[in-house]
Structures are given as C-alpha cells and as structure tokens.
C-alpha cells in the first residue's frame, strides 16, 4: 500500500496526465507543436499552480507605486494575494494578504496608507513590517498559547527588486532574482534605465478575460499578428500598409524562458530612440553601455517577457488619425483565475526625465491604444477568448497548434546583445522558448506538498 501511494504520487508529479497522455508528447516546442489541451484542461491548470505559480519569480509591483512610508497596494504574487508595502522604516516588503489567525484578508482596499494593519475578524494588528503587535483580549490566552513572535505576517518567501520592479517567489529554493533574470537584466536596463528612473503612473487598469493565460502570454511575443489582428488600424492609416512592417528587427531568447523583440520603425525620427523625445536621446549614452545605447537609438518598438507572465511593450504610435506618433511604455501582467479565465493588469509608465507635454500625450495615447478600451488591445482580447473557446472540446484537444515559423533559421551572430538572436521579427522562436521553459517547469513541479513555511523576514534589496 505504501509503495502504491508513493508511485501514485510520483506519477502525479510527472508529465503524464490522467487521460494517459504525456505532456512530453503533446507539447513539443522544438518541433513547434503545442497541444490545444494545455489551454483549457483543469488538470494541466492544477499542475501549473504548483509547478509554475508556486515556484517561479513573479512581478508584484513597482517601487514608485508605494513612494511614502506606510503606502500599501493589494496585489498578487503568482496567484496568491499579497500586500506590497513600504514599511515605517522605508523598506519595501510583501506579505500574504491573510491574517495568521483565521486567514481573513487583511488589506481589503486596492491601496492605502497605514501605520498598522488590523484584521476585521478578531482585531489582530500587525505593523507594516509584518510583526504581530497585538491580538485583542489577549488575557484570555493561557501561558504559551499566543507566541506573538512566531505569528508575524507570512512574507513572500523570496523578494527582490531590479530597477524598481519588485518580484517575489514562493519557492525557498528558487535562484536569486539576479540569477533568475540573468541576461534579461541587460535588456531591462534599456527599457527601465535608458534615461534614469522609470515611474509607474497611477493605478493599473484591471479586467477579466475569458481566456487561458498562456494564450495571452503567447501573444505578447508575437509580432506576426500585428498586421492582421490590427488591420482596422492599417485601414485607418495608423499602421503601415506593408504586411511585413513589424518584421524589421531582431528577437532574442535567453535562459529561464525570458524572451524579447526589438523592431525598427519606418525611417522617420519619431520611430527612433524608442519614440522618446529627442531631448532625452543624449541620456542613452550616460545611462547605458554603448551596445545598449545603440539598440535604444536604433529601434522604435520592443516587447519583452520576463518569464512567465510579465511583459513590457515599448511602442511608437498615435491614438487618432490627426496626431503625430509618440512613444509609450506599457507594462502587462496576466494572473490566471481558472484554466480559461485570466485577470489582466496594464500600467502606464514613463521616464522621470520626460518633459510634461510628452508625458501628457504619451499617457493619452496609451489610454486610447491599450488596455480594455484600446483600439489596439480590443482586438487582441477577441483572439484570446476565441482561441481558448475552441480549445475546450475533446476533438480539438487531439490537435496541436502550429508554432513552426523560423524553426530552421540560424541565429544572427552580429546582434550586439546577450542571448540567442535571430534576424527578422516574424518567427516563433520566442514562443517555442517560452513553451520549452513551461515544459521544463512542469516536469519538476512541486516541492514536498503541504510543507509549512516558517515566516522569515525578507527585505527587498
């Protein structure tokens, strides 16, 4: 009996599904074949919760969202609700948004500023650095029944910050954030450090989409879709009429599944320097190394995925048919709610050094083009929902999606940055790299189930 239980558990932790299919056979990134099953299957989703959302590093928020001591935003780390807080000493911390006593949600607003967090259920009160300050009516506890020193808020197991972006992981064995991001930091410097600091402006737009989270992540590294999905904007003249216009660039695959594109725009000044105002271009050389500065100067568009579900979009566009193109920095996060439902987050960010008139037009253009109302994004979400809806049935699950473009293309050794680079941004190398990391993580999904983490104070570096 004991052996049966052990082997049963081992099978459950491998890649074989209850249906008898093996993820190794139905997800074959190196061949560009990705089964539709993984986009709607509850069993696959349950395994993702442990294997991916319990293990990887996840974006929680940006330090500029909590500038003052006591500032709090309610967020997720993976799929668990967390509080991101700047404590009274100014240290950025993140805790499970759940009282140690009965698990009640502690922070019940989207943002706040507070010196203490008091649970509505029984009144337990915590400091912004997570210590349990007081349980109410403590005299009813006998000796040894309430050890407050052991009942602080549950910190996000690993917390780190790079260029103001705060990431967390629930895996005590996860590599450091620096190691996890690896060479992706070299490219993040271009996006988040090109002119100095980047500021996240205000709160995110949040909305729910009836789609598998992986359909959305797939789309954020897909340049091939731009001409057809956004055809209406081609018709209106907001996008070029050349079907290959979004292909003139490079894509890069890195360790740990991180992926990105840099694309040149039309040969116009507005599409150089990442669409930033010309007055900021000299800063590239001050804040970046020569190769990074050259990439920033030469490109207008970039999309990057910090594996698995956090993305930057750097674009040059207009939000109407009368205006000049302007640069936009948009940050995106997908939090799965179920196999086929996903919560979307979209932030607008801008260089702190940006002049006021540029900030205004960049923001307005962002609102008009991106997020649920965006004249670009609206049509993407339509694809995500329909691709998910058609993956539900038993027949569809027998068939793979097609991710073969560029499978025989050789890397371009002339690219000045780290990683494996390919010329021509139409190709599915980045998607294949993303699914390869997904499969790698699904092979080794879980630590010992049910292990109780003792809280450890962790401080964002």
């Amino acid at each position, binding site marked *: 009996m004991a052996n049966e239980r052990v082997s049963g558990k081992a099978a459950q932790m491998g890649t074989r599904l209850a249906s008898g299919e093996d993820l190794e056979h139905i997800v074959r990134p190196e061949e560009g074949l990705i089964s539709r099953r993984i986009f709607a299957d509850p069993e696959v989703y349950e395994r993702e919760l442990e294997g991916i959302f319990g293990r990887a590093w996840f974006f929680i928020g940006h330090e500029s969202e909590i500038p003052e001591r006591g500032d709090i935003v309610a967020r997720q780390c993976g799929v668990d609700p967390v509080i991101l807080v700047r404590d009274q000493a100014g240290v950025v911390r993140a805790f499970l948004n759940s009282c140690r006593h009965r698990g009640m949600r502690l922070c019940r*607003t989207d*943002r706040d500023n507070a010196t203490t967090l008091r649970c509505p259920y029984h009144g337990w009160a915590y400091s912004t650095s997570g210590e349990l300050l007081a349980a109410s009516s403590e005299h009813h506890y006998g000796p040894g029944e309430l050890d407050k020193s052991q009942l602080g808020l549950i910190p996000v197991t690993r917390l780190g910050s790079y260029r103001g972006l705060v990431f967390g992981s629930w895996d005590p064995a996860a590599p450091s954030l620096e190691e996890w991001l690896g060479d992706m930091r070299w490219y993040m410097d271009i996006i988040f450090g090109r002119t100095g600091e980047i500021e996240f*402006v205000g709160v995110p*737009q949040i909305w729910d989409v009836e789609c598998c989270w992986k359909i959305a992540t797939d789309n954020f590294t897909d340049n091939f879709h731009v001409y057809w999905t956004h055809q209406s904007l081609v018709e*209106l003249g907001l996008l070029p009429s050349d079907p290959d216009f979004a292909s003139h660039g490079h894509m890069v695959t890195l360790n740990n599944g991180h992926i990105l594109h840099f694309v040149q725009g039309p040969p116009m000044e507005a599409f150089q320097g990442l669409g930033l105002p010309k007055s900021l271009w000299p800063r590239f050389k001050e804040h970046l190394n020569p190769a990074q500065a050259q990439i920033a100067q030469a490109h207008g568009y970039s999309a990057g995925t910090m594996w698995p579900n956090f993305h930057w979009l750097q674009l040059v566009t207009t939000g109407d048919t009368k205006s000049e193109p302007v640069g936009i920095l948009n940050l995106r996060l997908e939090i799965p709610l179920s196999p086929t439902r996903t919560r979307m987050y979209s932030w607008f960010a801008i260089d702190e050094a940006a002049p006021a008139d540029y900030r205004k037009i960049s923001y307005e253009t962002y*609102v008009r083009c991106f997020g*649920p*109302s965006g004249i670009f994004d*609206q049509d993407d979400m339509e694809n995500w929902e329909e691709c998910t809806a058609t993956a539900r049935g038993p027949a569809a699950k027998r068939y793979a999606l097609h991710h073969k473009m560029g499978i025989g293309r050789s890397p371009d050794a002339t690219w000045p940055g780290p990683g494996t680079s390919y010329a021509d941004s139409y190709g599915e190398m980045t998607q294949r790299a993303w699914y390869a990391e997904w499969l790698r993580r699904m092979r080794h999904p879980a630590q010992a189930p049910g292990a109780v983490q003792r809280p450890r104070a962790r401080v964002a570096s």
Partner: protein
Amino acid sequence: MSVVREAAGAPADRCAPGKPLYGEILEFLYREAALLDNNEFAAWVELCAEDIHYVMPVRTTQFRARGAGFEQVSFFDENINSLRTRVARLQTESAWAETPPSRTRHFLTNVLVTGTDRPDEFAVAANFLVTRTRAEQAYQMFAGRREDLLRRVAPSEYRIARRRILVDQTVITSANLSVLF
C-alpha cells in the same frame, strides 16, 4: 418636494422633472442612446462637441473616508479626434472586437438636470446600465453614473461637451471596452 430637489442638488427651476426643458434633454438622451444601440456611430459622433472631453476613470476600492475611488488613470480619455477615430474603426470590417458587431442596450434612469452659469449648458447626471452580448456569449453588463455637460445649440438640439463615465466596477468583467457609453 422642494426638499427632495435641494437634497439632490437640483433647484426647483426650469430644469426640474416635468418642465419642458427637462423633457427636451431627456428626449435627447434617449435619441442618443438609440443611435449607439442601432450602430449609428457616425451620427452619434456628430452629437459630440469639438471640445468634448470623454473620460472613464479607473475605479479602485477605497475606505469611505478616502472618497469614491475614482483615479487619475482612465479607461477612456478622449477628445473629438480620438472619438472620431474610434467611430471610423467601428466602420471598418476588420475591428474584430466589433466585427461581427455586438448587440448593446443603453438604459438611462435617475436623470437629473442642473443649470450652470452658462445659460446654454446643462449638467446632466444619470444612472446607466449598458448590456452587451456578442456571438453566443452571455451578457456583459456595465453599470454606473454618467455626468454630462450638454450644450444647447438650437431648440431640442444638444452637443455633448463633457462626459464622465463613473463605472461601478474596479475590475471590468469584459474582455474589452469596445462599446461606447
């Protein structure tokens, strides 16, 4: 009755419910809603003033003492050019979020009209419910309060000079906001 009107911020004047001006404005709102529900977007955008500001702020959950939770960041922040672009987009056959088109219904209630310091401009507040369904999908619903500034340009003829769409949801439970409010 006068107490009720005062409490609602509307003086017992020419804009009060039952007065001809109130009826005129109500009819304008109903005709405007019908244009949206009938996919007559080109006619709808003609009702927008050249200086329109059309905005739907993001809402967050806040403690009562911190206000209603309407943020600086918006879901819509439009001028006449961007609204015309949205309408032009809806008239292509490749705006996939509305191709094939959604079926919408705009419901307006609790309409209160207040005069302003300009004789031709009226502050119009209303509750809205917008339902949307497309393909075989279940209904998506958007509820909230709309605060308009309407400009009377001729008898029974108005232009929308400002529209604030104060949605109740902090998380929009719709894949996209491809409908107009």
